């Protein structure tokens, strides 16, 4: 199981936003207005940080922070 705060910190650091701006049940697009290129960078950063293989289709700008944690957890359990 990955720590939710750890995920949020990685997301906030990559996107250069404050962790408080990321609202749990809102998509990244709604809360901080990410674009597709930022998502590519984010997916690569998350893959490297948590040492899992995530596809850009699995985490999109319409994913919520909750969903991102779930995706990473399911990858960890594989």
């Amino acid at each position: 199981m990955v720590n939710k705060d750890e995920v949020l910190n990685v997301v906030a650091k990559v996107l250069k936003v404050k962790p408080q701006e990321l609202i749990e049940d809102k998509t990244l697009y709604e809360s901080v207005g990410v674009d597709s290129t930022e998502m590519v960078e984010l997916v690569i950063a998350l893959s490297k940080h948590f040492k899992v293989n995530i596809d850009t289709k699995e985490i999109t700008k319409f994913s919520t922070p909750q969903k991102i944690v779930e995706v990473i957890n399911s990858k960890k359990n594989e």
Partner: protein
Amino acid sequence: MEPVAITGIGIVSPAGLKKETFWANLKNCRCYVDQIKRFDTSFYPSRIAGQIYELDRYSNFPSRLIKKIDIFSHMALVATQQALEDAKIEMDSIDKNRVGVFTGNALGGWLFAETELRDMYMEGREGISPYMASAWFPAAAQGQITIYYGFKGYSKTIVADKASSNLAIWYGAKVILDKKNDYVICGGMEAPITPYALLCANTYGGLSKNNISPKTAYRPYDLYRDGMVLAEGSAMLVLESKESAVNRKVPIYGFIRGAGFSCDAYHRMRFSLNTEALEYAIEEAIKDSGFSKEGIDYICLDGESTLFGDMLEAKALRNVFGSKLENISLSAPKSMFGNMLGAQGAVDLVITLLSMKNNLVLPTVNFEEKDPYCDIDGTFNQPQERKINKALIISRGRGGINCVLAVEKGGGLW
């Protein structure tokens, strides 16, 4: 051509990152060319340039944006912000569908591209930043300005070496006259002080190799000239129709009155020894603007500082103006900070407008001995007080892309 008003100026240059400091520094004829220390330049024949050191201090753009763009777009954003503030444009009261951005750039964003390409070859596909695709190409700066401010009007980027931004300004003026846009933000930006871009510029061979004495290296029209010096920077201007500027009661710096263009059609790098093409461009600019040859007060020279560049420019001017040239002030103030390639035309326009405002002709610095093959006199080493009402700005790109802009002083709303 009907006059198009210039109401805002923004400048980012080695000689100052605001128009007030820029003017104060140039007026004192200080030189801002220095050795390049930000990367190892020991194997470059030319190791000097005009550089910007404190851009971040003058920038208030979010770091989330800055990491996605190259330095040349960053400089353009800072200059645009200054120009919009200077023109007192209230963002809420304008129709953003009728604001366009016209920029000139020659090289693109190599600082971003070089580092990312290296990472791609070192680390593979995942080593490259996803922003690379939208950061390096010459139109990136225009795109970033339009996205940041939400300007949705007709916009364009022109790539024509040193004539880029003068062409962009002329296109912008045309769009205002055609009533396609209410406002046009136009100008140029360039960041050639990166390892690869500098290498390319060195290969071209037109750069000064006077690395020991950078302050006196760029010396247009001097007998001992050995090439130009690169610089990085950006200049942006706000154009609008005369009626719009008068209605808004803002000071008008000057008017774009006309332009002349031509190509040498001779060689991919060198200028044609026959100066007919440049003469044609100058004549066209005079005809288009309705100026008389006697009425022109000032000509901002291209001053390439190469053996042929200056000689041919002098020859063309002498052929067009004959003895009337004695009454015209000529200078290339860019010798104080270097040549910004794609942005140089816009910077020259800013210098000309500020000279008009302050009734002062800025000199060509580092002049020691007259070249007998350059049959013109100019304003050298010391500024000269003179009222400037009408001026020409000459820009010549490599291989002879000639663009001459005609400018007139604005109304008395200073």
